[in-house]
């Protein structure tokens, strides 16, 4: 680890000004990812501006009925918050599916969104990685790709975003509130993370010095919500694939029909993947295993698996069908 200066931020504005004015400065939140990267040599900031004690640790109700989650609310506190558990269970479930009890006590909401890929080639400074060192190549393309992307990857990067929380937030149509030197801006969560393209070093659309201050959740969210994560161990492992779904079923006209479906996928792309093709297919459809399977297949037509991760295609399809069946009360017949 290279030597660095440490400052505790007095307020959000001065924290933003300090980091904006120093190209090698970074914000420090819970530190669970950044401190680890500093040990590994993946990150080498010259200045850390600690924002973990700023008064951004509250969950508050918005005037429009939505909810504001402060950027420094810890993952464990967010998962246990009564309003999250009652109104946004998909978010509580996603948070509880991530990391360990200790890490959830440390990790912040803003930091969770900004955590970086767990691609082993990214985390090993002896390997070529366009994300860590632009232009150096991608060792994963010639390596072991079981954990890599099947959607939206580029020739330069096949890494996946590791967050569970962000997948649920994508399905909830959350908005990221960001403070920069020029003031505040609001970014829809689905547009916050990027696909790798030719700039895999950029995980998000944030500019240097911009600080996440909150995540807003909209009011009037359908109550049928679920998060399901498939992984190599029963606990404490990153997703192979995950599905967050928020669904509304209307039965007023007789036959039940899906009037609102929001689905996001984890473990499959460089960002939480909003499954908009599946959503379009489901819109107006009667809930059935067949319609769920058609929706999943519509989404997965664009999948482009690598050498070791073709299994993710049926795994996403089956998980999506199972989650939707569960949410709509459809008998989940054996899925091929």
């Amino acid at each position, binding site marked *: *680890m290279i*030597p*660095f*200066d*440490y400052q*505790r931020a007095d307020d959000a504005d001065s924290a933003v000004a300090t980091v904006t004015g120093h190209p090698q400065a970074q914000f*420090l939140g819970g*530190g*669970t990812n950044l*401190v*680890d990267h*500093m*040990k590994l040599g993946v990150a080498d900031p010259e200045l*850390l501006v*600690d924002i*973990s004690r700023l008064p951004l640790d509250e969950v508050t109700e918005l005037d429009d009925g939505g909810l504001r989650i402060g950027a420094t609310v810890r993952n*464990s506190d967010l*998962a*246990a918050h009564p309003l999250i*558990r*009652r109104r946004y*269970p998909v978010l*509580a*479930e996603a948070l*509880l*599916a991530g*990391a*360990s*009890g*200790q*890490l959830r*006590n*440390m990790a912040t909401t803003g930091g969770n969104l900004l955590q970086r890929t767990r691609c082993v080639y990214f985390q090993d400074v002896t390997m070529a990685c366009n994300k860590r060192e632009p232009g150096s190549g991608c060792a994963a393309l010639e390596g072991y790709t079981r954990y890599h992307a099947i959607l939206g990857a580029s020739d330069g990067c096949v890494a996946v975003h590791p967050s569970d929380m962000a997948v649920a937030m994508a399905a909830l149509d959350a908005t990221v509130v960001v403070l920069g030197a020029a003031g505040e801006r609001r970014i829809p969560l689905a547009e916050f993370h990027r696909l790798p393209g030719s700039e895999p070093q950029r995980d998000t659309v944030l500019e240097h010095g911009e600080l996440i201050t909150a995540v807003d959740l909209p009011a009037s969210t359908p109550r049928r919500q679920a998060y399901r994560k498939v992984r190599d161990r*029963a*606990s*404490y492992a990153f997703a192979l694939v995950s599905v967050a779904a928020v669904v509304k079923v209307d039965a007023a006209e007789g036959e039940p029909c899906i009037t609102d479906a929001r689905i996001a996928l984890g473990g499959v792309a460089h960002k939480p993947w909003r499954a908009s093709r599946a959503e379009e297919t489901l819109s107006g459809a009667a809930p059935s295993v067949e319609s769920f399977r058609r929706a999943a297949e519509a989404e997965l037509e664009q999948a482009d698996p690598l050498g070791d991760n073709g299994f993710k295609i049926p795994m996403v399809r089956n998980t999506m069908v199972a989650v939707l069946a569960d949410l709509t009360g459809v008998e989940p017949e054996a899925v091929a």
Partner: protein
Amino acid sequence: MDQNITLYVDGNRRPVTVDTRTTLLDALRDRLDVTSPKKGCDHGQCGACTVLLNGRRVTSCLVLAVAYDGADVTTAAGLGSDDELHPVQQAFLDRDGFQCGYCTPGQICSAVGMMEEAERGSPSHVSANLNDPVELTDEEIRERMSGNLCRCGAYVNIVAAIRQAADPEAEQIRQARAERQRNEPVLREDDAPTSYQVSVSGEEGR
């Protein structure tokens, strides 16, 4: 780049000068001779360094000491005294919840923090209902303790120890029942008169 900080470790005021790069774990072990938390992976994956930081369990290897000036740190060594062990410590002894002991201080701090989280009603990944009070079943204990690895594989007894600490009476009844079952006569293979087929006829006799 040194900074002066003060930690309150197991009830003792401990001023210390640390390089900004120093983790809480290294500050405790190398600077303050508090060696109860252990360094395992040093990447937050094994849980051996778990302490209670301002009352909450964290992996101290991922915490920068400078960021916690003024904080309360409780290690496993500070949970009880030689005369009176903490109930979780006593339960690990009673239930033989360790073999080599390296992960034990982290397991114990994690268990204490976890039981407090459960007491507050915090749900887990395996909770059937997010809003119900928490009952620390074996499944709940295993899920909530998944951030603490034990290379000796003492998990069965670690779960039993935490079960005992969480509900001593229920565990006492459970152990008494298990003891009775162990003492019941069992038909062994070498007791069988003629053929193995007689003695391996099913699970009921065991």
